[in-house]
């Protein structure tokens, strides 16, 4: 009897451990998600004040919103900027992570702290700092002007380029750390083995190091692309009216215009597209087609 109940309670333990997490997800993920979906199919309350809506399950809201070019443009820009920022972050982060993991020696912890150091300063402040860096009086433009590569009235901020640069910078640690982790775990004797088996350094990298670090690359690109496509701080602080991302539209529709259905439709669409893209990406990565 006692034995049976001991076995029974042991088999219940995993579920008990799962309970807090599941409850958290239910309250803070499932409920808002359902509420978002419900809001996306509401219509204005007849005779009501702005911001008053009734539940009419008008799925045509999706068609209305997604046929407006300004919203489509914002969605398109979101994915384009996020994609470019992800690629740029990958190109910067991979060599950085490689150098820290395989070449830094005893300075490794120091470099890792430096990678994470920007997090000690507020996200907004760091982004505002980029205005100065990229602005007309900033060092980047100054250097370009000194080299006579750009006219005297040239400025990078505000522009799409500034937004992408901001996104790249802000999400760089999220790209660097997973790649670092996968490279640091790798047995460096595998590189020697590849060189011993007639691979030049470059071939050894392409055939051994890169494929083995792919899980890190996949994790890094997801951790960069997903938040970057929903980001609005960078577009708001470093962009202008022509660089609006979907996050900015959601922000203004929700908080300024009290246009909850439109904001919900855009949020939901953004989420659905990201999910679909991630699904395809991870499946391809899983079958090593990306290598």
């Amino acid at each position, binding site marked *: 009897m006692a034995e049976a109940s001991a076995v029974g309670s042991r088999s219940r333990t995993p579920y008990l451990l799962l309970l807090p997490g599941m409850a958290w997800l239910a309250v803070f993920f499932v409920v808002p998600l359902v509420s978002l979906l419900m809001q996306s199919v509401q219509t204005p309350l007849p005779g009501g004040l702005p911001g008053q809506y009734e539940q009419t399950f008008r799925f045509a809201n999706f068609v209305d919103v997604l046929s407006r070019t300004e919203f489509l443009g914002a969605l398109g820009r979101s994915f384009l900027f996020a994609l470019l920022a992800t690629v740029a972050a990958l190109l910067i982060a991979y060599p950085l992570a490689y150098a820290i993991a395989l070449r830094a020696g005893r300075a490794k912890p120091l470099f890792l702290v430096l990678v994470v150091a920007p997090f000690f300063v507020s996200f907004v402040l760091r982004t505002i700092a980029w205005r100065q860096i990229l602005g007309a009086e900033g060092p980047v433009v100054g250097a370009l002007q000194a080299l006579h590569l750009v006219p005297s009235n040239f400025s990078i901020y505000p522009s799409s380029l500034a937004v992408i640069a901001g996104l790249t910078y802000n999400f760089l640690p999220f790209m660097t750390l997973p790649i670092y982790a996968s490279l640091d775990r790798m*047995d460096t*004797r*595998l590189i020697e*083995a*590849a060189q*011993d088996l*007639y691979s*030049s350094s470059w071939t050894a990298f392409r*055939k051994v190091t890169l494929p083995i670090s792919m899980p890190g690359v996949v994790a890094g690109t997801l951790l960069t692309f997903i938040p970057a496509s929903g980001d609005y701080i960078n577009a708001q602080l470093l962009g202008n009216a022509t660089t609006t991302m979907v996050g900015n539209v959601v922000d203004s529709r929700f908080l300024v215009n009290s246009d909850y259905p439109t904001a919900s439709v855009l949020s939901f669409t953004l989420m659905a597209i990201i999910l679909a893209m991630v699904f395809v990406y991870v499946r391809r990565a899983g079958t090593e087609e990306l290598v």
Partner: protein
Amino acid sequence: MDLNGDLVLRDLRKEFGDFVAVDSINLTIAQGSFFALLGPSGCGKTTTLRMIAGLETPTSGQVLIGGTDITHTKPHQRPVNTVFQSYALFPHMDIFENVAFGLRRRGVGNVEKQVMDTLELVQLAHLARRKPGQLSGGQQQRIALARAIVNRPAVLLLDEPLGALDLKLRRQMQIELKRIQTEVGLTFVHVTHDQEEAMSMADTIAVMNHGVVEQLGGPLDLYERPVTHYVANFLGQSNTFEGTVASRDGEFARLATADGEFSVTSAQSSGTLAMGVRPEKLEIAETTGNTVPPTANQVRGTVTDAAFTGVSTQYVVRLRSGKEVTVFEQNLLFGRRAQVGDEVTLYWDARHSFALPASAAHAAAADGS
């Protein structure tokens, strides 16, 4: 045999800061031979191997294969392949692709037959589509070997390839390695700290210590005629006696020691000398029942320990001077064995004693007296 494929190390030296890992060694390793670099960890054997592979740059000296200087070529340009101690199989590729790796890098077109033939050779063709992580240690070891020999390198380097295997599997792989070496006829350079492994497989062994080759020779040579104390004690056990040459007796020198006079093969006619004799060469007159031959060396002592180990009984006998000698007696006898406390006469054929240079301490003491 064609001598053009010999591997030659000429004054090869490697320093790491102040530490001399390999101290200007010279070796010629004949094509097609099974050569072992034997020594304790830190003796420079692995560094030597890595310099042959091109994974370490020598401080000075040369590496030549078939007369071609390859000292300054990159690892991938050398006709040399390595079986790594940790195997270093590529975890993201299956067994077939691991073995095909070298062939593909050299642009060999149809690799299927060569890869499968090599997998047959190591008897693992049925695992071609598994990943390395799904294989046991012994299987991974064979794949590492297959991945190297499929390329038919001029020299195959093996870095403690059996170190991670358990004893039984290690013995089995030793036999298999030897079979494969004979079958493919490649030059094998095998690094190990296991003297039994080196002796059972290699044609020639270089015993290394502190970055230098202490002695070079066949297994039997090294065992029966070690020339340094280090070799005498690293390969098996030795009982050593220090003394002064008192007279000569034909090919033998008569060595006066604290435990009496012994004959030892040596050309020396005066001065200090040390003599060694292997424990299994000693016989106990009381248990064999034989009379001691007149030309044999003999010494009396007291048995202080007797341990039965199955194939033999290992005795420790204390001599008059207090020196303790080890005796291995094969379990062939029906009579009584020596017991602890017994007074015994040990004897051995003079040809079994080998001369060693006198230790520095003894030579100094002899000079002073």
